[in-house]
């Protein structure tokens, strides 16, 4: 089983096409800012754990303090971002990617 070899110029043509540029834009416009956002949110949590210990220790519900709540919120945000990405990919990326793939496969048959 080998990789299908395609004429290289096909890829350059597809790369220049407006549809591929749109797919690339939709992918990057979602994932890049989101990556920055969750990394900043995570680092904020680590920095607060290092430098704002009194704040993290404020008790909110019984023995449950802000540090613990922020930590649990990291779990919640991770689950939500993962689900949101999956929905985004299914709705906005997959149809376009499938269409382009079929086109390239047709052209290079």
């Amino acid at each position: 089983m080998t990789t299908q070899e395609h004429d290289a110029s096909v890829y350059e043509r597809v790369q220049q096409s407006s549809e591929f540029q749109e797919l690339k834009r939709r992918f990057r416009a979602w994932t890049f800012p989101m990556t920055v956002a969750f990394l900043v949110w995570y680092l904020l949590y680590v920095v607060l754990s290092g430098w704002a210990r009194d704040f993290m220790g404020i008790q909110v519900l019984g023995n449950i303090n802000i540090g613990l709540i922020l930590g649990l919120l990291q779990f919640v945000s991770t689950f939500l971002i993962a689900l949101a990405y999956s929905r985004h990919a299914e709705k906005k990326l997959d149809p376009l990617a499938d269409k382009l793939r079929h086109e390239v496969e047709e052209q290079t048959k």
Partner: protein
Amino acid sequence: MSSSTLSTILFLTFVAATLGITFWASRNTKTAADYYAGGRSFTGVQNGLAIGGDYMSAASFLGIAGMIALSGYDGFLYSIGFLVAWLVALLLVAELMRNSGKFTMADVLAFRMSPRPVRTAAGVSTIVVSIFYLLAQMVGAGALVGLLLGITSAEAKNWTIVAVGALMIVYVVFGGMKGTTWVQIVKAVLLMGGAALITVLVLAKYNFNLSALLGAATEASGKGAAFLEPGLKYGTEAQGLMGKIDLISLGLALVLGTAGLPHILIRFYTVPTAKDARKSVLWGIGIIGTFYLLTLVLGFGAAALVKIPATDTAGNTAAPQLAAAIGENFFGSVGGTVLLALIGAVAFATILAVVAGLTLASSSSFAHDLYAHVFKKGTATEREEVVVARVSALVIGAAAIGLGILAQGQNVAFLVALAFAVAASGNLPAILYSLFWKRFNTAGAVASIYGGLISCLILVVFSPVVSGSKTALIKGADFHIWNLSNPGIISIPLGFFFGWLGTVLSKEYNAAKYAEIEVRSLTGVGAEKATEH
């Protein structure tokens, strides 16, 4: 029957079942795609479970529960980095790698660059990262048997390492990726089941009131409210500013390392399409996240209910002891014995599965990258390649046994953090640049991998981890230069910097190949298909 006898019986049952799976898998492993990628025929859910199995090492199961039991909040902090890291893998790496690679991490890098230097660098880094990780697990296995089975003689510990190593070699040599993946799936189910059972019992004891559990843990810890606040383990006030910088450094390595770990990256090749790769990471995140939430209860439960012996400085016995205590609390002494045995067996299964995954990753990279493409310049047949992969699994396994015995009793826990740091500093920059940066080239890839790897090693050699502290690897010597235990905060930016520098210093650049990898990675054109049997 004592719990160690029962534990041994349960563990042997696991071994018998997984060996059965391995021999079944070996009969279905014919091609290179079968051996390296399990025929790419696993479903998203199966691979998601296997991702959990590969990732939830004994270090995270016993280690994080133990860290929470001893240091409260700071243990929890550790597990969060391990989880958030999966978003990097999901958003930026998993699908694109599945679409553009074949068997190893180097496939993606070698796609548009001069293959030999890039494969050499990626192969070296894969083997170094996997062996660091492997060594930590092997030494951990020896220490665990002492704690769980009450064996203290060095000889018995050495035999445990030999037995674990021999089993892992059998799984990998005969079962390849197919056998190893099923071992991971079985282990993940057992681990989740065991952890969930104990969690429910602990919560039941406190009437499902988390605050009451935390209160009991705080009181028993003797450390007061500080037990639930940051700073008992990482960046303690006594360590001053450097300690806090070290905390950030560790956090960075944890969150950026996962998506550069070779044994995790090759998991994305075991499914038929990029959509399945996405689905498997989603399942992986669900499983791993749930598991870390369970360890939170296990850790605080252990803090509240058991007394960890002073000799167990890492708290590795916290979870097994908790199992015994909570079992006894609900079901009498028989219950305690059974639960302790169960958790002991699960812990061994965990070690075994993780070392198998690591051995597979390093032997695959040796055979596919170094042997087939560097030494043989791509002239090796698929058959030869698989034979070499099997032989190198045997050699790497034997080396891991030898090193594991030599390192017995050493404090090698830092090797896991080091493996994450190397993965984040060398591998991740090279992967991200090659997927997203048009101008990236051979010099850049080689510079980022070696630059990240070497800067990590230098930073660690001259850190208190190796010399000049009470827990140092080399006792009685002091050549440490800085007080930074985790190299990430310096080595990760350096890895990205070297990748950029190498790129701009070289004129090489292949526009046509970049067009190809960009189109292929986003659309899945020409992606490797699943094999049929």
